[in-house]
């Protein structure tokens, strides 16, 4: 693997520094992905890349340069370029320093089978999935990826952190003429991917959601499966859980800290060290990631920081910096929502009339402070009546404030799932929400 090469690139770049401070973010990625549709493999790719990004600090001026040419001469040129660029930039009076080194908790994030998985092994696994779909007269599409990344950060103050992370991911949509079902899993170890189970989940949904009926849009009780919850929570985090959005006054958390903003059953935090998440133990400035609680029992508690936004408030970074430079500020990439004590069956049985949503599609924020989100349902939407699933329904469009929805939570499941979403992976439960507004319908 490339860990040694990344570590060498870090030290080579640091060695060329003549800036007041210098930071090097080096990363490599070796990923392969097999894509299938109509029950055959239609795309099959592999990519290896390695790059460095330099942040050079001269007084209070900062310059950046990056390259994916990692010979010594190119690294030297890139360091010099970042330092030259710093001279053009006006001083930033609010910049204090790059982060000092802090103790980083080690986390084992590598499974050798994932690193070494071959295209033939991926095809063999997919043959099982496709055979199961075909046996049910269904059509499978999806993507199956395996590989690993190395991330290293070093600076001239002594920060020096490197981590290797392997990742296997399988997603599938299995379809009939009138319906579809979705299955997905992400894991560090490819051996934790149960292809048969993912296929069965998607097939069951595709069969159950056949011949959907029209349902008038309106306000309904909804049961959201983890895919939908992860999507919603991810957009909410983007809109308001980072310090920059709060400091700029565009976060829904503004003026709400220590106030009840959601149902008391809702707690949300970020914790890259939790074994239920797949997260690096340090951020892209080399600062150890800390657990940050955003919402506790429905009460707004705080936001996450990088070194720049933390300094502005006289605080310490919580280890949530994204790769610099970026305009987004710090963001949480390993969200967790607290479990409840319910189950999907109990949610269904307790509902006189509700809509069960498997998954959202193409969600987007219309208003970041009101957290108004719109999007479609997809891959299995069902009408529940008198405590049981009555029928599949055609997909609906929703337009709904996320914070308002999370203030009407009636039940939270004990079981949770890790789902990839807009911002990293989120470990979230099923939710039953008393009121959720659907504003449009479609023809399928």
């Amino acid at each position, binding site marked *: 693997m490339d860990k040694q090469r990344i570590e060498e690139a870090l030290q080579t770049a640091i060695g060329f520094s003549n800036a007041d401070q210098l930071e090097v973010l080096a990363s490599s990625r070796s*990923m392969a992905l*097999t*894509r*299938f*549709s*109509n029950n*055959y*493999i*239609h795309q*099959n*790719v*592999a*990519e*290896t*890349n390695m*790059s460095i*990004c330099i942040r050079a600090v001269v007084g209070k001026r900062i*310059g*950046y*340069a*990056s*390259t*994916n*040419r990692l010979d010594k001469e190119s690294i030297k040129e890139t360091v010099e370029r970042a330092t030259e*660029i710093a001279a*053009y*930039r*006006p001083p930033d009076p609010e910049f204090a320093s790059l982060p000092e080194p802090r103790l980083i908790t080690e986390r084992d994030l590598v499974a050798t089978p994932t690193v070494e998985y*071959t*295209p*033939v092994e991926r*095809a*063999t696994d997919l*043959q099982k999935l496709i055979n199961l779909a075909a046996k049910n007269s269904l059509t499978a*599409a999806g*993507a199956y*990826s395996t590989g690993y990344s190395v991330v290293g950060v070093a600076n001239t103050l002594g920060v020096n952190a490197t981590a290797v992370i392997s990742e296997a991911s399988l997603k599938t949509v299995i379809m009939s003429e009138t319906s579809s079902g979705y299955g997905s899993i992400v894991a560090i170890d490819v051996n934790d991917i149960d292809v048969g189970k993912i296929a069965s989940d998607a097939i069951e949904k595709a069969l159950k959601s056949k011949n959907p009926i029209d349902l008038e849009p309106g306000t309904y009780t909804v049961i959201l499966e983890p895919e939908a919850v992860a999507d919603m929570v991810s957009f909410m985090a983007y809109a308001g859980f980072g310090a920059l959005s709060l400091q700029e*006054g*565009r976060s829904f958390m503004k003026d709400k800290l220590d106030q009840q903003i959601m149902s008391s059953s809702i707690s949300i935090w970020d914790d890259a060290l939790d074994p239920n998440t797949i997260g690096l133990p340090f951020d892209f400035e080399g600062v150890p990631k800390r657990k940050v609680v955003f919402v506790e029992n429905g009460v707004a508690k705080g936001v996450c920081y990088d070194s720049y936004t933390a300094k502005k408030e006289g605080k310490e970074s919580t280890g949530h910096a994204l790769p610099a430079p970026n*305009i987004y500020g710090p963001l949480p990439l390993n969200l967790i929502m607290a479990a409840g004590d319910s189950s999907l069956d109990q949610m269904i049985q307790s509902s006189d009339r509700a809509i069960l949503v498997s998954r959202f*599609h*193409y*969600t*987007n*924020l*219309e*208003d*970041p*402070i009101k957290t108004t989100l*719109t999007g*479609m349902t*997809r891959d299995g939407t069902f009408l529940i009546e008198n405590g049981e699933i009555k029928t599949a329904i055609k*997909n609906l*469009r929703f*337009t709904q404030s996320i914070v308002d929805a999370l203030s009407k939570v009636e039940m939270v499941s004990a079981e949770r799932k890790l789902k990839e979403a807009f911002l990293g992976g989120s470990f979230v439960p099923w939710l039953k929400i008393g009121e959720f*507004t659907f*504003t*449009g319908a479609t*023809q*399928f």
Partner: protein
Amino acid sequence: MKDLTQLALDIAKASGATYADIRIVEGQNETIAIKNGRVEELITSTDYGFGVRVIADGAWGFAGSFLVERDEIERVARLAVEIAKASAMIKKQDIAIAPAPVIQDTYRSPMEIDPFTISLEDKLALLSKAEEIVRKTPGVSISSASMSISREKKVFASLEGSYIEQEITETGAGLDAIAIKESDIQERSYPNSHGGNFSTAGYEFIQGLRLEDNAARIGEEAVKLLSAKECPSGEFTVVLDGSQLALQVHESCGHPVELDRVLGMEASYAGTSFLTLDKLNTFRYGSPVVNISADATVPGALGTFGYDDEGIPAQKFDIVQGGMFVGYLTSRETAVILGQQSNGCMRADGWGRVPLVRMTNINLLPGDSSLEELIDGVKDGLYLATNRSWSIDDKRLNFQFSTQIGWEIKNGKLGAMVKNPNYTGITPEFWNSCDGIAGQDEWGIWGVPNCGKGEPMQVAHVAHGTAPARFRNIKVGVGR
């Protein structure tokens, strides 16, 4: 360079490939972003690598690497063939690709001023002046300005004998003003949202945007929106400005006519398309005034190039003619389904990703009206401008857009400003409700530098030519 491309092709062929191509791509980028008077981004970056695509045992394989060295080229070419042979374990039939001309040529996107020859000081000064005007507008909470300059040099070589060198320079810039009062957040952008406007041109494009001249206006509009009334809810006649129409064309026409999507190849990600094969030449997509073309040859447009990433020459062809759906965007593989040759829409995001069917410049052709005439024909309606958010279902039918700003139209005249406008509809119903499009004088090209598709995700740079247009009976003010 030719020795490296030939090495890849030779190794691929010797390993069992019946078709092979290689792209060696070198990218150079410079990004500047200023926010609230602080330079947030000032970065130059370079990127270099190659990708080898093959057909072996009747199936596709692709591999790419950042190390453009002989040993690595040999390893990657063999890996691409190994991957193709794994693909062949689950195939329905051997991949067939439409014939393509053997081409040896070079293409360089035209420009007047090489943007990389302009000093960082000058670029910072241009952006800073405009950003300062926005920032100093009373009531503006967040002001920003950004500029992006990039150049991609790429070589394409195929086993069939094509060898094409291209150099494409892109420039773009934009301004943004955000005003916040309690839980009300309003935004205005110039010349467009999501970073501004972008082109395949030189620095003259950025100078021509005249950011400084438009800075005060967008600052003032953002602040005025805070006290504007809410956009009403109901069914209205809507006139859309060109920039919002560009995204409407992108989502509701550009994506659904990608033939790989139609054939189900994107089903597990952003979905399929309602424009199924049976609808070609038989489906009324829009009203008779709606004409849409794909044109990769528009000078300076962001989706313009010399050859696509399969070595097919850039082309212009109809998508919608007199409202009827008449054409897809195709590749060599997908064109075979239609018994056609590729119309040159295979584009890859850099060296490390495999080409997919992508938009080029998908243009709503100008009509014979004008914005003034369009508004004049409205008794009670809305004029909506500049995209704020977008969403569309997985067959590209049910869409919902919000825009940054709107104005009432009363008895043929623009009236009061309205805030938080959004509108929703079903694609063919929407385009069939179009009863007027402004003419050539008000037609412009909008570059979209962030078109996402595929797994692993790829970002394409595309564009849309549009003029303001009018739509009847549109549902507005959704979710209020």
